[in-house]
């Protein structure tokens, strides 16, 4: 088949998909050519992932047709998608940890029947072609996040994919690693592949794509050429109205140390080092940002302060009192609130099958006198939160599992804030949130800061960390790389520390 640059690799016509009463995609028309990178931009719940799942055979559209190279196709399962040359790289890696890179790449194909040396050669040849760095014999559990992602990409290329879909590929990468990924993507584009990238980071859209398709409420509202657009226009298209992109950083006075972490070392259950000799102070009325690639010790830090993990050495002083050894319950009662939004968003802070009322009770039910729980106050609280944070839900009796990601996070953070903590630890509060909801969360945090709450903010997006935090500490492999003043640092500096370069003597502590 002759592929000229003007042929659409994939064309979607009139795709509609609904789940029960919820319409995820409505009459979507979209085309992508070979040798092109299309960014799919949209708020949470706008139908990006559903649309891509239809392309990769996980869902089947209710209505509409898909053309590949001009032929109508029926993608009924992921195998079919692969056969048609569509490869999806998911946000969460689907690799076998104990297998080598090579074994993971050929897993499920006939590749295993080929001689090892020949296979290795083939993989190396392919990786050279696209500029991927792969060590075929390295085990996955020895790999960094970015290496794992490379394997995922190689996996679909090995299966002959000409059309690649990447679902939020940069959320786990450092700025430097992201740049490396973009180089690979550009290389693949030059080789004539069609690439669709799902993301909600605007500067990345502008950096990598040729065209941008913007989804809103399941419909494609516009497709623009990247060269002719800017962040402001994209945001407006995505949200549907103009919106300010500035994050405020209010100044507070009366800063005094409330939490002091001294020589804290944590060893994980599997014997790996979680935290190594961490020292820092957290003051009232400040937001201390924590930067680092995923798995650099953020979870261990949160859980140790919350009393869920026991450190090997070190102390956490809360108003000069060591809280190590106290139960989570006692720590909650001291006014230290921890909200960790894990990858599945529900995991720890909320109970998915319970409604908002019952979730409000999670940390306060013990304050009920006697044996029976009085649910009236928590119902009132739930209704207040719905109003105050404009949470979209049919009613407060709906299981929180049914709410969209943004609303779930509002429920979680809202509850933590309503408990009027003195120390608020929040990890990834805007994980996967759309712009609008993210800004509501930033405002909530700033409001708490003004109330002299000490806030430890563990974030993913460096730009946000730089704008929102007063100070930033950087973790890498459980070690503190440095603590810098957010106003006087640069993205590059923080990025280098995230990758493991220590900044000696940089400490804006006093």
């Amino acid at each position, binding site marked *: 088949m002759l592929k000229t640059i003007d042929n659409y690799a994939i064309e979607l*016509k*009139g795709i509609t998909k609904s*789940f*029960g*009463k*919820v319409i995820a995609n409505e009459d979507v028309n979209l085309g992508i050519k070979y040798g092109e990178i299309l960014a799919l931009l949209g708020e949470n719940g706008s139908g990006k992932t559903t649309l891509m799942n239809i392309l990769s055979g996980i869902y*089947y559209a*209710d*209505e*509409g*047709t898909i053309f590949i190279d001009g*032929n*109508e*196709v*029926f993608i*009924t399962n992921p195998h*079919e998608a692969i056969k048609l040359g569509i490869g999806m790289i998911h946000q969460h890696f689907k690799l076998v940890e104990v297998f080598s890179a090579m074994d993971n790449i050929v897993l499920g194909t006939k590749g295993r029947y080929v001689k090892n040396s020949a296979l290795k050669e083939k993989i190396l040849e392919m990786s050279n072609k696209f500029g991927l760095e792969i060590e075929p014999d390295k085990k996955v559990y020895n790999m960094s996040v970015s290496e794992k992602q490379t394997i995922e990409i190689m996996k679909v290329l090995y299966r002959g994919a000409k059309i690649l879909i990447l679902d939020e590929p940069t959320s786990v990468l450092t700025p430097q690693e992201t740049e490396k990924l973009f180089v690979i993507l550009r290389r693949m584009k030059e080789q004539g592949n069609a690439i669709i990238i799902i993301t909600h980071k605007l500067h990345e859209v502008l950096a990598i794509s040729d065209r941008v398709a913007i989804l809103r409420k399941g419909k494609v509202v516009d497709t623009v050429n990247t060269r002719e657009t800017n962040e402001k226009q994209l945001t407006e298209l995505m949200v549907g109205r103009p919106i300010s992109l500035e994050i405020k950083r209010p100044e507070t006075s009366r800063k005094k140390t409330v939490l002091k972490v001294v020589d804290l070392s944590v060893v994980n259950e599997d014997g790996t080092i979680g935290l190594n000799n961490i020292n820092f102070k957290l003051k009232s009325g400040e937001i201390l940002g924590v930067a680092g690639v995923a798995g650099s010790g953020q979870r261990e830090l949160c859980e140790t302060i*919350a009393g*869920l993990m026991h450190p090997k050495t070190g102390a956490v002083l809360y108003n000069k009192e060591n809280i190590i050894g106290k*139960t*989570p*319950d006692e*720590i*909650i009662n001291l006014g230290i609130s*921890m909200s*960790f939004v894990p990858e599945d968003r*529900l*995991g*720890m*802070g*909320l*109970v*998915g*099958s*319970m409604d908002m009322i*019952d979730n409000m*009770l*999670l*940390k306060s*039910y*013990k304050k*009920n006198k006697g*044996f*029976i*729980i009085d649910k009236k106050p928590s119902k009132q609280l739930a209704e207040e939160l719905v109003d105050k944070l404009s949470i979209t839900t049919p009613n407060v009796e709906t299981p929180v599992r*049914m709410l969209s990601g943004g609303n779930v996070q509002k429920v979680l953070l809202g509850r933590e804030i309503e408990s009027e903590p003195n120390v608020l630890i929040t990890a990834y509060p805007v994980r996967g949130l759309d712009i609008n909801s993210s800004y509501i969360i930033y405002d909530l945090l700033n409001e708490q800061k003004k109330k002299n709450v000490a806030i430890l903010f563990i974030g993913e997006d460096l730009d946000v960390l730089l704008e929102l935090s007063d100070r930033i500490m950087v973790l890498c492999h459980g070690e503190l790389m440095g603590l810098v003043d957010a106003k006087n640092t640069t993205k590059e500096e923080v990025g280098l520390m995230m990758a493991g370069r220590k900044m000696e003597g940089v400490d804006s502590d006093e």
Partner: protein
Amino acid sequence: MNNRSHTPFIRTVKISERSSNDILKIRIAAFVLALTAGGLFILLLGFNPLKLYGTIISGAFRSKMAFQATVKFMIPLLMSSLGVSIAFKMRFWNIGAEGQIIVGAVCASYFALFHDNWPHFLLLIVMFAAGAIGGGLWGLIPAYFKSKYDTNETLFTLMLNYIALHIITYLRDGPWKDPGSSGFPKIARFTANAQIDKVLGVHFGWIIALILVVIVFIYLKYTKHGYEISVVGESKSTARYAGMDVKKIILRTMIISGGICGITGMIQAAGSDMTLASSVAGGVGFTAIIVSWLAYLNPFGILLVSFLFSILDKGSSVMQSTYGLSTYFASVLQGIILFFILGCEFFIRYKFVLTKKGGK
């Protein structure tokens, strides 16, 4: 188009919400289908299905005595279902109701056999407490190992059933063997003093069972303990994060779950068998698992489902004797009915969609 052949004609689609009305309709349809399929089976054997079904219903209700027998069937089933449902709510797979019933019965029987000179009500209260403690401790063993070493509670509770069963056999053949049975291995019949009184013709276990329905309902829905059980069941890490003592909750809940099963054993021994027989649980602990899931762990649902099960049980035994059928005939019929009732759950969660032609 050669790809046309790959079009799926029927797909299953997950349904996020069905109205309760639709769910009821599906359940009724499943019930009707179950009766139809069961009817075909009866026809194959050369009987009139309508007549046989009539016999089941009338067998369960035809006389005061029949109805009393139906209720007697229901009591252990209802109580042990309530017991296991508490553990299930915590996602603790307590398959050991059988064993907990047995140990409860054994502990209660000790007092019935060796302290039957105590005042009647004191004796009953002690037996009741002994049953609860025995069953509770039997439930505590797997819970302890689960919380301490994360052992598999399914296998653990299952294996404890057989240990419990053989404890009875040991007692029957050895220390508790009835000296008056002229060598035949059995345990002596309880004296009237150690038997549960009758209220309205059935031993008063039915009153305890009904009270338990209400208590368990309130316990799970409105108390701190119930709340903790739900949270632990959903996610242990969330529970820890909220400051709950997960180990303590697991231990406590299994004592309660096993304790209720233990009470069942005491009531079965002192109210129905009037002795300690190895058949004191008789599979009820397993049926309870089906009952509590069919009722979605709702105590009032459990009351309804266990009542329907007892009708089927009592009715089929009448049917067997009336038509001279094999004892397994009723089991096959029960199996068919269960198959449809459980199968309809699939249609509550999923629906089939016929694929429309491409471009529509």
